[in-house]
């Protein structure tokens, strides 16, 4: 299956699902207003039409890219690990807070892009995160997450 065919089928599925959910919405037509489902219906039809067009283009060999290009290159693997680290970062932050999670993320990313000097990693991770915390959190008063786990630990102590 080509990427565009995959994309076209996915978009057809999305438009059908969107159409189904549009059916569930209240019509709410009043005082001449065509209702809050008019626009979603137009979009459903448009997306179905465009998905079909993409499919036709792909079948006729007119759409790019023509094939999947999955290659396990070091850069690709590094990007995938990087994305996972970002996901873990935003998942743990509500619990351990902005400062600690950012220090950990900073160090991990530096390690991931081949920085191996522990002192440099430690220095930059703590230093830059502290600067960011002071800049955004203290100077500009943006309430950065403190972390529920740490708050409990401090309360307990």
């Amino acid at each position: 299956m080509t990427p565009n065919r995959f994309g076209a089928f996915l978009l057809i599925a999305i438009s059908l699902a969107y159409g189904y959910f549009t059916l569930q919405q209240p019509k709410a037509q009043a005082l001449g207003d065509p209702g809050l489902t008019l626009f979603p219906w137009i979009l459903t039809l448009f997306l179905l039409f465009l998905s079909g067009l993409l499919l036709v283009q792909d079948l006729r060999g007119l759409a790019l890219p023509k094939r999947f290009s999955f290659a396990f290159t070091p850069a690709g693997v590094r990007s995938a690990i990087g994305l996972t680290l970002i996901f873990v970062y935003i998942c743990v932050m509500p619990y351990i807070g902005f400062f600690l999670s950012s220090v950990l993320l900073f160090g991990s990313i530096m390690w991931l892009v081949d920085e191996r000097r522990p002192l440099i990693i430690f220095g930059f991770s703590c230093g830059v995160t502290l600067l960011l915390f002071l800049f955004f959190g203290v100077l500009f008063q943006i309430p950065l997450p403190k972390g529920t786990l740490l708050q409990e630990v401090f309360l307990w102590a």
Partner: protein
Amino acid sequence: MGIEFFQGFLLLLQPINLLAVAAGSIAGLIFGMIPGLTTTTCIIMFLPLTFVMDPVTSVALLLGIYTGGMSGGSFSAILINIPGTPSASATQIDGFPMAKRGEPARALSISITASLVGGLFSFVALALFAPQLANVALQFKTPELFALIFFGISIISSFAVKSVVKGFISAVLGLIICTIGQDPIRGIGRFTFDNVNLLMGFNIIPILVGLFAFPEIINIFKEVMTAHEKVKGALPFRKIFPSWADFKVAGMANFIGSLVGTFIGILPGAGGPIAIFMAYDYTRKFSKRPEKYGTGIPEGIASVEAANSAVCGGALIPTMTLGIPGDGITAIIIGALIIQGLAPGPLLFVQHASFAYTMIAAYFVANWITALIGYLGVRWIVKLLDLPKAVLLPLIIITCFIGSYAPRNSFFDVFTMFGFGLLGLGMRWLQITVIPMVLAIVLGDQLESHLRLALTSSQGDISIFFASPISLFFLLLSAFTILFPFIMQRKKKGTHLGFDSKGTDQ
């Protein structure tokens, strides 16, 4: 205009606002210069600050970044033969040979001066045309406004992308995202799935951060180990300032570049990468020595740099007067202004006239400050080309988090950012550009409102859209922009359907 124009300038001349322009210019120059980082990334990194700033200071900062980023891209193009931004990708054609010949300071000087000229030229166009265009747009009623927004989305879906079909898919997906939350007329929740976070719809900032920043973060992951060869050569202080001889030689190139850049900037979606190559081509055609182009002549550098700077002012015209962003960066600026409660559009010049003129003034001052910082600081700024990306990468990620979290202090928004980041990566993989989606998200609510209000007033009769000459004009123009790429393709009898042009990510 009159008194409000001067009030705008006076408001901007407060020290905090000048400081914001200068900080933005420096940041823009640095981010524009370093390959792999872009002006868009820089704006996204600074977004959290704008939430706690006064609207005037915010816009001063953002416009500083915008103009600085356009100039900064040329530094790396000249010194390491790699453009810092796509909008500087033609600067290296003449800039690098000149630098290699032992004249890097001269090349940088011509580039900074041309950026200033292009910026000032487009400022004049912005100051002259924006208020007039806003006045005209104020006369528009709902059918005309619907047709205008539809035209904006059509043109960006047709001309800013490689495939028209994919451009429209991107736009329709953006409009679908817009329908989540309260409907714009009656405030009834739609597609919320009983999730209280979805009641107000998605916040625009996390969407912008995700769609723009994630693909760039992945790019940096891929490019992080790439080493660049830097041109060796002194940058003596006095040679950084432009010589009269160079200014005279490059005069016509500056003018053509400025004209082309301003015009292309006004067209939504066309953007810098198209403007620079057009400007370079026109300058060569009008030149007395076209054969010298590519060998390191001042005209080659000046035309490109004047064009890419002029694009900014041009792009601000539809952004400020019609609320239609000219490119990805102006879409982010609109997002930042919406957060501040200032939606760009014709009403901006009526309800917030002093702010609108301050914005124009900020663009003028940003050009001067960027040039001043460029002349005085380029010797130190270019040293940052050696800045390790191992430090920059996590810094960008963390500021992306802050940018998404700060508007509502909500982790839902942070996960929205991550989700849209993955969507942006998926779209890039399918070669679907995100720019039409962003435009649709910015304009979706207005498009639906005007459609429904027009139909309500006509009791459901769709001929209301064809009754007004203005509305009919924009709809015909939309039809033309949709069909034009197909017609061109037919003529060329090419291999794939669509209109080939460079992307507009800055």
